[in-house]
C-alpha cells in the first residue's frame, strides 16, 4: 500500500473539468514529480490533494484511508502540506512568523522545527525579523517550503517551486529538496522545469489535458517519450 494514492480523481472548477480520472501513487520516502505543459491539470491535481479544491472522499487515500474532499485546514493536520504556486506567503507576517504559523498545522513531530528550518535555509535566520515581502524570490520560496515543513507533514506537496527563479537559484532550491528527501520526507512535486524535475524525482508522471500520458523512472524514459507525452506529438 502506497502512502498517498489517487483513484480516478476528477477535479472541477464549476462546470470546467481540469482533471479526468487520474491514478497516482506515492510510496513512503519517495520523491515523485508531475510534469506537463501549462494547463495540463497539474496544479488542479495538487490543489485537490491539498484540499483547496474539492474531490470525492475515495478519490484520495492517505495510508489507505479516504481523505478526499477534506478541507485544506484539516488536510494539513492529516499530514499533507502544500507549498503553493506563487509561494503565497503572508505579507503582514515577518519571516519568522510565516514559519512559526506553519506549526499551527502540526499534529505529529517528525523532527522539523524552527532550528531545523534555519539549518536548512541559514539565510532565513538572518532575515527572521524582516517582513516576508522584503525577501528575494528565492528566499521567499525557502520560507514557503519551510512553512510547509513546520507542519511536519507525511507528504510535502511542492507546486512549481522553480517558477520565476533564476537557474542558479532553482539549483539551490532543488538541493534543499534533496536534503528534505534525504531526511525521509515524502515529496510530490509539480514542475514545468523538466531537468529540475527529472533530476530530483524517483518517478515521474506526465500529465496532458487532465490525463496521465506517461509514467516511469527518469532514467528509463527517452526524450522522445517525454516529448510525446508532454506535447502530444512524436517529433517536434
Amino acid at each position, binding site marked *: 500500500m502506497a502512502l498517498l494514492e489517487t483513484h480516478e480523481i476528477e477535479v472541477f472548477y464549476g462546470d470546467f473539468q481540469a482533471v479526468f480520472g487520474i491514478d497516482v501513487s506515492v510510496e513512503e520516502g519517495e520523491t515523485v514529480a508531475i510534469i506537463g505543459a501549462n494547463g495540463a491539470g497539474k496544479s488542479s491535481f495538487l490543489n485537490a490533494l*491539498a*484540499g*483547496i479544491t474539492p474531490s470525492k472522499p475515495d478519490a484520495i487515500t492517505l495510508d489507505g484511508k479516504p481523505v478526499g474532499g477534506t*478541507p*485544506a*485546514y*484539516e488536510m*494539513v*493536520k492529516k499530514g499533507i*502540506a*502544500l507549498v*503553493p504556486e506563487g509561494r*503565497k506567503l*503572508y*505579507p*503582514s*507576517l515577518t519571516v519568522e*512568523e510565516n514559519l*512559526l*504559523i*506553519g506549526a*499551527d*498545522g*502540526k499534529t505529529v513531530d517528525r523532527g522539523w522545527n524552527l532550528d531545523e528550518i534555519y539549518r536548512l535555509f541559514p539565510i532565513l535566520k538572518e532575515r527572521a525579523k524582516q517582513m516576508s515581502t522584503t525577501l528575494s524570490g528565492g528566499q521567499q520560496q525557502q520560507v514557503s517550503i519551510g*512553512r*510547509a515543513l*513546520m*507542519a511536519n507533514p507525511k507528504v510535502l506537496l511542492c507546486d512549481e517551486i522553480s517558477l520565476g527563479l533564476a537557474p542558479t537559484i532553482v539549483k539551490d532550491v532543488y538541493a534543499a529538496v534533496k536534503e528534505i528527501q534525504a531526511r525521509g520526507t515524502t515529496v510530490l512535486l509539480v514542475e514545468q522545469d523538466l531537468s529540475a524535475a527529472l533530476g530530483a524525482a524517483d518517478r515521474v508522471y506526465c500529465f496532458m489535458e487532465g490525463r496521465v500520458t506517461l509514467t516511469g523512472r527518469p532514467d528509463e524514459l527517452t526524450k522522445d517519450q517525454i516529448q510525446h507525452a508532454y506535447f502530444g506529438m512524436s517529433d517536434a
Partner: protein
Amino acid sequence: MSYVNTIIQGLLLGGLYALYAAGLSLIFGVMRLVNLAHGDFIVLAAYVILALSSFTFLPPVVAFMIAAPFLFALGWALQKYILNRTVQSNLLVPLLVTFGLQIIVQNGLLEAFSADSVRIQLGPIETASITIAGISMGVMPLLTFLAALVVIGGLNALFYRTKLGRRLRATSDSPVFAQIVGINPRNIFAIAMGISFVVIAVAGFFMGARANFDPSVGPARLLFAFEAVVIGGLGSLWGTLGGGIILGVAQELGATISPQYQVLAGHLVFLLIILVRPNGLFSKQ
C-alpha cells in the same frame, strides 16, 4: 485660549469616536466586511448594560463586565451562523444582510425599551472635571479617551504579539491560503467578530454614560465610526484613533458656530479628506 479648549474637547470626543470605530476597523481588517449594523449593536450593548445594572442593582461597570462575554458570544454566533454564509458571495450579500440586521436591532430595541431616551447613570463622576493649565476637562471624556488608548493598544498587542494575532493577520492576508497551515478562516472570522463585539460593549458603555440615547441613534454612530476608519486609513488601528480625533475636533469646531453645524462639520471634513486622500491620512500606501 478658547480655540485650544475647543481642540482639547474635540480630541477627547475623538476618543469616543475611536471606540466606535475600533470594532469596525478590526472586522474590516480581518474579513473586509463593513457591518452596517455596527452602530446599532453599540446601542444594543448600551441597553444591555443599562438593563443589567437596573435589574441587578449592580454598578454599570460591573454590568459591563458581565455583559462583555455575552456580547462576545453574540458576535461570535452572529458571524458563525449568519455572516459566514455571506463571506464567499459578492459584496451585496453581506451589506444587505447587515442592513437587515440594522432594522431588526433598531426595532427590537424599540419594542423592548420604547423610544424614550435613557442614560447609563454613573453618579457624580458624570459631571466631575479637572482643570489642567486653565483648561477644564471632564473626567468622563478623559476616561473615554483613556479607554480608547487601552482598547487600541490592546488590539495592537493582540494582533502583533499573540498566536491568535498571527492567525488573524494571516487570514486577513488570504483566507484561502491561511488554510494550508491549518487555519479555518470561518473560526477566525467568528473570533474576530466576537472581539469586535467586546469593543462594541466598551463603546456602548461610554456612549450610554456620556449622553442620552434611544434606539434610533445607531446609524449616526456607524457613520462616525466609518468616517474615523476611512480618515485613519483602512486597517490601521492607530490611524483609526487619529481619524476619530480629527472627526472629534472638526465637530467641536463646527459646534462653536452653531450646534446644528457640529455633525455637518464632521461630515464635510470627512468628504474633504476623501477628495484629497481617498486612502486616508495614515495609510501606508
